[in-house]
């Protein structure tokens, strides 16, 4: 009886893994089509031109395919066993790149190898996922313990800080999304809610004067303190919350004005309409929205997007690749891409839940939230819901490091799901 049940489950899992591979392949191929369009030049119509982005990406896709197959062939225990060494090696390379890396657009985050460049930060997410899964799945570790949470946080904070040092704010931001993994492993949902409320309050402070917000908070606090005066314990809690949020607000204000660079501030202010700057920080967003918005229902067609073809959107094959989809394939094409991503992420979570090994489950969650982080930040930026934060769209954007790291990230998970040895 239980055998039959088990077998059915295995079949389902097998199907889901296959679906993941199919979606992965679709995204990579559709991504390549769009990279080709974004770099299309009437004067050079050769599909395989290795001096151009689309040509180079073919090499990267080939390499990614090779890695994918390699991962599916090797023993699945390899990664759980070597989690820490991988983590340490990547962290060291993140340190090394600060000193020997090539500076590109103000960020020192690339290793130049011949004509190809590698960005270790992309692999940082994979390494962190491995280390985090390894640590949290250890038999003697209980997430309820405070110590566990501290160590797990440190595993995340290290690459976060190293990447921040490389001036790559976008990639660093992704590490914040590991909080969803913590939530799944037992972090109080209130913390998520408080996090959302804090984010809302801090966002609001960009639009409304911070003293007005503090005054409003004070009024609300006074009301609750008066209303709940019979519960002394709650009264203190409210006052504590007020003091905490007020000081957070003020320190955020300090960070915003003194730690953030001018171009970050510009991007944020453009997003909130506080600054209109068609040629500066606002240019990318405006052109990106024009590209997507002009796509209409079914788009202008392959190689027909004028925004795309004539380079109105900067960084179009990397950070703004979604513009090409929006312009040339319209609402239909871009919705399909959004649905594919959401479906992929939701399936990874479902699949993770079915894993018997905590390592596989936690790793699966890491994969889901990392893909989700990139997806959300990248597309929200392209459609003008977030300030310009340069991070690639997984599987889609031009760039070897990104494609390779996401391929490895995903296929290690796929390999885990097919694995039945690591049952504790």
């Amino acid at each position, binding site marked *: 009886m239980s055998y039959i049940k088990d077998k059915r489950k295995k079949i389902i899992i097998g199907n889901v893994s296959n679906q993941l591979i199919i979606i992965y392949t679709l995204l990579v191929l559709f991504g390549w089509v769009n990279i080709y369009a974004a770099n299309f030049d009437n004067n050079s119509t050769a599909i395989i031109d290795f001096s151009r982005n689309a040509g180079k990406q073919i090499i990267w896709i080939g390499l990614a395919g090779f890695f994918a197959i390699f991962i599916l062939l090797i023993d699945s225990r390899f990664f759980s066993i070597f989690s820490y060494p991988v983590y340490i090696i990547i962290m060291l390379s993140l340190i090394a790149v600060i000193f020997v890396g090539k500076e590109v657009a103000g960020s020192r985050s690339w290793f130049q190898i011949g004509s190809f460049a590698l960005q270790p930060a992309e692999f940082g997410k994979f390494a962190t996922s491995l280390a985090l899964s390894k640590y949290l799945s250890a038999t003697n570790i209980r997430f309820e313990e405070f110590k566990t949470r501290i160590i797990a946080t440190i595993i995340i904070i290290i690459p976060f800080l190293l990447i921040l040092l490389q001036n790559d704010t976008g990639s660093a931001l992704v590490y914040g999304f590991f909080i*969803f993994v913590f939530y799944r492993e037992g972090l109080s949902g209130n913390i998520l809610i408080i996090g959302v409320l804090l984010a809302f309050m801090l966002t609001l402070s960009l639009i409304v004067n911070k003293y007005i917000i503090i005054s409003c908070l004070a009024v609300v606090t006074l009301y609750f303190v008066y209303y709940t005066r019979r519960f002394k314990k709650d009264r203190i809690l409210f006052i504590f919350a007020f003091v905490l949020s007020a000081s957070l607000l003020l320190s955020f204000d300090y960070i915003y004005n003194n730690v953030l660079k001018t171009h970050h501030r510009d991007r944020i202010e453009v997003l909130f309409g506080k600054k209109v700057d068609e040629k500066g920080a606002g240019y990318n967003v405006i*052109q990106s929205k*024009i590209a*997507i*918005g002009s796509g209409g229902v079914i788009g202008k067609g392959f190689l027909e997007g*004028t925004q795309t073809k004539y380079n*109105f959107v900067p960084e179009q094959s990397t950070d703004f690749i979604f513009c090409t989809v929006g312009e040339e394939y319209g609402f239909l094409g871009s919705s399909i891409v959004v649905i594919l991503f959401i479906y992929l992420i939701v399936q990874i979570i*479902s699949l993770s*839940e079915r894993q018997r090994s905590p390592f596989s489950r936690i790793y699966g969650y890491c994969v889901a939230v990392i893909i989700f982080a990139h997806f959300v930040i990248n597309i929200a930026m392209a459609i003008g819901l977030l300030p310009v934060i340069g991070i690639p769209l997984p599987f889609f954007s031009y760039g070897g490091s990104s494609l390779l790291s996401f391929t490895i990230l995903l296929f290690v998970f796929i390999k885990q799901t097919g694995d039945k040895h690591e049952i504790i």
Partner: protein
Amino acid sequence: MKVNYEERANVLQVIFIIIGIIFVIRLFFLQIIDSSYKNSANNNVLRYTTDYPGRGLIYDRNNELMVCNEAAYDLMIIPKDLKKDFDTLSFCSMINIDINDFRTRLDKAKKFSRYKGSVFEAQISKEDYASIQEKMYKYKGFYFRLRTIRKYIKPIAAHVFGYIGEVNQSIIDKDNDKYYKAGDYVGIAGIEKQYEQELRGSKGLKILMADALNRDKGSYKNGEYDIAPVSGSNLYSGLDYALQEYGEKLMENKRGSVVAIDPSTGEILALISVPSYDPNLLVGRTRTKNYKLLQDDPNKPLFNRALKAKYPPGSTFKLINALIGLQERAITFSTTYPCSRGFHYGGLNVGCHEHNSPLDLEGSIIHSCNAYYCKAFGAILNKYKTDRDGYIVWRNYVTKFGFGNKFNSDIPNHSSGFVPKAEYYDKRYGKNGWKWLTVISLAIGQGELGITPLQLANMSAIIANRGYYITPHLIKKIGNKVPNKEYLVKHYTGISKIYFDKVADAMYNVVEGGTGMGGKINGISVCGKTGTAQNPHGKDHSIFVAFAPKDNPKISISVFVENAGFGATWAVPIASLMIEKYLNDTVLRKDLEDRMFKPIP
């Protein structure tokens, strides 16, 4: 606290799905609801450029080209392409403007657009273009755009052709078809204005694409949406270019006008008003400056005397009164009136010169007797119950000759002249306060009458045609078609042909042996009538109307020479030479010609 992990997985999945839905909704608004992005994308990439058609050409009656187009170059500016080290001084000296002017124009261009080209200096001639073009490489941000400008082959007929100029805001506002855009040219006066619709053709549109760096990316959809320009229609004028030129030469250094009409068709052969100007002065970049000079010229060269000056027609008007008198049977061919150096009635005296007396109708025309016409005029008006009734009948005949009305014609901006209505005198003298004697000056073409040289030439054509006229007009064909059905209609005066024959005979004798003797041409039977328009401001104006040959006339003409005294001295020989030139092509009377070329002493 027990954690429900299954539920947490669902919470996360729901959060992610909600984010996905938010994105799809946002995309729906961006891509489907809000259509402004399509325009923005088009604005980014599409460059609409006007393809200007060639303006129609104008030919004379012998298919000789009179007006054509010539290449000119608009100097265009794209402000954003101007380099920091731009050498403003040398640039200004090259195109001959001062530095303040440069700044004003640059500001104007920037206001229009920093990225799109606008006109910096319009219509630079081919010659200037050649020398500027060589140095253009030094001035990034400027380029040339080819336009055509008008070229008037000979420096004549300025009043006929008029001129074109850039449209102003009021033209753009009034234009219901929304055809004109700032920078377009439009006919402002003359034929150029009258036939603007036909001459301009229609503009074409080229849609080009440009990339983010404004580099040319070729035509949009292979020109599928381009509109080809349609050239303007060519106009065929009834004007005789050589005759016009000859007439202007004869009238040089004088003031006045010559209007010649082909009576059988109503086509204007020559339309001369002097002082005039070279029509090429009002072309290209110097137009505004020159226009101002012409406007301020005390000789008023812009004033078209032939169409707008209102003169009392003097003795030439006696022909009309003779015809009306005959038709009204107030007089006959044999009616004679005595003249004792004028017409004297009560206290009224209208003087006359020395001649045989009494005179019959023919004699009265030959000798231009004032007394005869005063009496004849009285006879016409006295026929009716009141003189006022008689006057209304008389005036009705006069207007049938085209006096006091505008022609339904392409002749630009011409005056209707003035033939007072009965009400005019009622107002002045009271309803029953005036009689034929009150308005007796009309009998000899003086008084309140205001007649334009064009109307007088038309009168001559009516006599030449023995009773009708075809509306005088400048353009006989647009491409292959007649511009106006009106030009095929004969307008009758209601006076019998036999009376016209008689008057024509008399006019022939005016030239053969009367006041118009100076107009005689060997081998051509010229009919004419002299006149003098009284001028309260100085010497009288010399007038002559004529047609020739007497039978089957080919040309009828009116000549006004201001301040030239008696008609015979200047107006007669000029009309005669014009007739000789038109009918014989060459003028044999070189002495007379030379005398006429000289200014009035």
